C-alpha cells in the first residue's frame, strides 16, 4: 500500500518540480547565501551567552576548574534539596570530577522517576540563543535532561559557539567520525507553557529549573556584566 502510494506521490511531485540535476540544484542552493543570525547582547561571546541563559529563565554559576565546579554543584543541590545526591550520565567529563572533595554523592546512569536532580555535560553552548547542546549517546541519556525537577548543566567555556550556523559546522566532523547521534537536543530554559489563558508557567513537563555551570576561564566580572545587562533589559527604565 505504502510503496504504491510512494510511486504515485513521487510521480506527482516530479511532475511539479523543475527537474533540475543535482549539480544545478546544489549550485543554486549555494547561491542563496547565509541567513542573518540574531544580534548578540554583548560582543564577548561568553557574556552574550550568559545574558541569554538568564533571559531564558536559567540560572548561572561559574567555576574556574573542576574542583570549584564540584563545590558550586554541591552548594546548589544542598540549597535546593538539603541533599548531596544527584544523578549524572556516564560522560567521562562528569565521571572524572573530584566529587568526594565536596561531599557530593553522584549516581551515574539514567534518572529514575522521582529523582529530583540530574547533571548533564553539554557538548556546546550557543550564544545567539543561550541554548546548551546535548548529543544523545552511551553516556548522555536523554531522559536525564527531561525527567528531573532541576536540570544542572556543566559547560566548558571553550565550547561556546556564536550562532546556530556554527553549531552545524561543529556537528559535521561529529557525523563523519562516529555517525549521526540519535538526538541533538538544544535546551534553552526550564520547561514552560502558556496554554492556560496565555499565562506563562514553568515546569510544564520537563525540569522546573535549569542551572548552567560554566567552567574554565570565565571571570566573576563577566558574570556581573551579564547580570547587569539582563537586569537593564528587564527593567529598561531603571538606571
Amino acid at each position, binding site marked *: *500500500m*505504502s*510503496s504504491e*502510494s510512494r510511486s*504515485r*506521490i*513521487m510521480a*506527482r511531485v*516530479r*511532475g*511539479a*518540480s*523543475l*527537474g*533540475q540535476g543535482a549539480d544545478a*540544484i546544489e549550485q543554486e542552493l549555494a547561491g*542563496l547565501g547565509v*541567513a*542573518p*543570525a*540574531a*544580534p548578540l547582547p554583548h560582543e564577548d561571546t561568553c557574556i552574550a551567552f550568559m545574558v*541569554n541563559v538568564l*533571559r*531564558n529563565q536559567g540560572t548561572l554559576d561559574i567555576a574556574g576548574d573542576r574542583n570549584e565546579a564540584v563545590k558550586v554543584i554541591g552548594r546548589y543541590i544542598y540549597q535546593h534539596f538539603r541533599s548531596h545526591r544527584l544523578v549524572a550520565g556516564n560522560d567521562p567529563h562528569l565521571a572524572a570530577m573530584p566529587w568526594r572533595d565536596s561531599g557530593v554523592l553522584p549516581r551515574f*546512569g*539514567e534518572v529514575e*522517576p522521582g529523582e529530583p536532580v540530574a547533571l548533564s555535560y553539554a557538548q556546546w553552548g550557543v550564544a545567539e*540563543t543561550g541554548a546548551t547542546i546535548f548529543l*544523545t*549517546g*552511551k553516556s548522555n541519556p*536523554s531522559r536525564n*535532561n*527531561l525527567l528531573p525537577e532541576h536540570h544542572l548543566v556543566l559547560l566548558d567555556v571553550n565550547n561556546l559557539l556564536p550562532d*546556530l*550556523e556554527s553549531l*552545524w559546522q561543529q*556537528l559535521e566532523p561529529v557525523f563523519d567520525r562516529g555517525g*549521526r*547521534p*540519535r*538526538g*541533538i537536543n538544544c*535546551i*534553552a*530554559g526550564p*520547561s*514552560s*507553557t*502558556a*496554554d*492556560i*489563558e*496565555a499565562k506563562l*508557567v514553568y*515546569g*510544564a*513537563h*520537563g525540569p522546573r529549573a535549569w542551572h548552567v555551570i560554566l567552567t574554565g576561564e570565565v571571570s566573576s566580572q563577566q558574570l556581573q556584566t551579564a547580570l547587569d545587562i539582563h537586569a537593564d533589559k528587564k527593567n529598561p527604565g531603571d538606571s
Partner: protein
Amino acid sequence: MKLQSQHFQAKTAEALADTAGVAQRDVLALFAPMLRDAAVQEFGSFEALRQHVKHIRQHSLDNLDYYLARFELEATNNGNQVHYADTSEEMNSIVLDICQQHDARRVAKGKSMVTEETGLNDFLQRGGLEVVETDLGEYIIQQAGETPSHIVGPALHKSEQQIRELFLEKHALGERELETTADLVTEARTVLREHFLKADVGIIGSNALIAENGYSMLVTNEGNGDLCANLPNVLIICTTLDRVLPRGEDATAMQRLLVRSATGQPQTCYTSFYSGPRREGELDGPLETHIVLLDNKRSDILASDYKEMLQCIRCGACLNHCPIFAAAGGHSYGWVYSGPMGSILTPLLTSLEASEALPNACSSCGRCEEVCPAAIPIPDLLRDLRHEQSRQKITAPRWRSGLKLHAWLAMRPALYQFLTGTTMTILHRFGRKKGSFSKLPLAGGWTGKRDFPAPQSSTFMQQYKARSKADE
C-alpha cells in the same frame, strides 16, 4: 477531523454572542501582536531573514523531487522506516498497523496538526488504543471533547476557571490543589508523567525534515514532544512531505522566524533533532522509529497556483493579526486550520464548495501578509479562491450578479462616477444632520447591526478633479 466549515456564519454568530469569549479573544488579539513586534524589532534584520528563508523554501519546493528522495535515503540509512500516505485514511492505517505490530496499548502524543487533520486519535481509539495528548493545550481540549481553536494555542478559547472545572470533573484529585494556574499545570504534569512512563508508542509531528542528514526537527516549550520521542519503545513521526528543507542551517534559520512569529520568543525551551532509533550501547531512546509522510493533496497544491501556501510554517501569526479571526474565533472556521492560512488551506485540502465562506472571511486589510514569516501573499490567494468559487458557480447567484453589475459599472468610469457622485450627494444631504443612518434601503445587512456613516459632500474623484483644476 470532520469538516464543519459550511456552518461558518452560524458559528460566528454564536461566537460573537459569547461576551466572555469575545473579551478573551480581544486580549489575545492585543497582546500576541505586541509580543511578535517586540521580538521582530529586537532581531533587526528580520526582513532579510524572512526573504532568505522564503528563497530557501521556494528552492526546496521547486526541487522537492530531489530533496524528498534525499531525505528518504538519509532517514532510511539512519535506521528509520519511511512510509508514504496518499490520504488521511492511509496515514491512520499505517500508524495503527505499526501500533498493532507491537501489541501497543498506550500512545503518548505530542501536538500535531497533521494528525488533527487526519483524525488519528479517533481512529486509533476505535482500534482499541488509549491515546493521550500530552501538550497541555491539546490535553485540555481532548479531555473536554473539543477541537483546537488555534494552531499554536489549541485551548486558548477556554478560561482558567473552565479548565479548573474540567480537571475537577475528570481527575481523581485526592489531596492535590487546583487554586492557581501553576497548580493546574502541575496537575496535568503529574497525570501525564504517568502516561509518558507507561506509553508503548510515542507520536510526534515535525517542524522540518532535513534532506542532507535525515534529521527531523521538533520545536516545543513544554518538552512533551521530547518525552514522547525518547521514552516509549516505538516512535512515529507524522508529518507532511512539504516540510523538507535542504540543510541543517536552513531548519534553524526557519526556527528563528518561527519562534518570533509564533510566541514572540527569541528561542523556545526545546529544539530537538532526531535521526532514528536507539544506537548501540545507548541507555534510552526508541528501539524502532517510523516517519509517515502524508500528501493529502499537497502534491496537487505544489502543481497549482497556490504553491506558495506550502511555504506556511504554521506559526499562527496570521491568526493573531486577523480582525476576522479575533471576532469569529478559531472554532467558527470548522476545521483544523483557522484564520487566514486556514481559509486557504481548508478549501485546498478539503472542498472549495463545503468551505465556501472561508475565502470570503477576509476584510482585505493585508495584515496577514505583512506579518507572515514566509511572506505568503495571503490576500491574493484568498482573492484567487473567491474568483475560483465564482468561476465554478459556487458563489451564490445574487453575489455573482452583483459582482457582474459592479464590473460592468467599473468598466464605464463616467457612468460609475456619475452614479456614485449622485448617491453620495443625496446621502450627504439627508444624513449630515445626524451624521449617520440607522436604516437605508438595500443596505439592511449593514444597518441591521450598526449605523451607516453619512458620507462627505463629494467623492474622492470629485475632490481630485476639483484640486487638479485648481492647481492648473
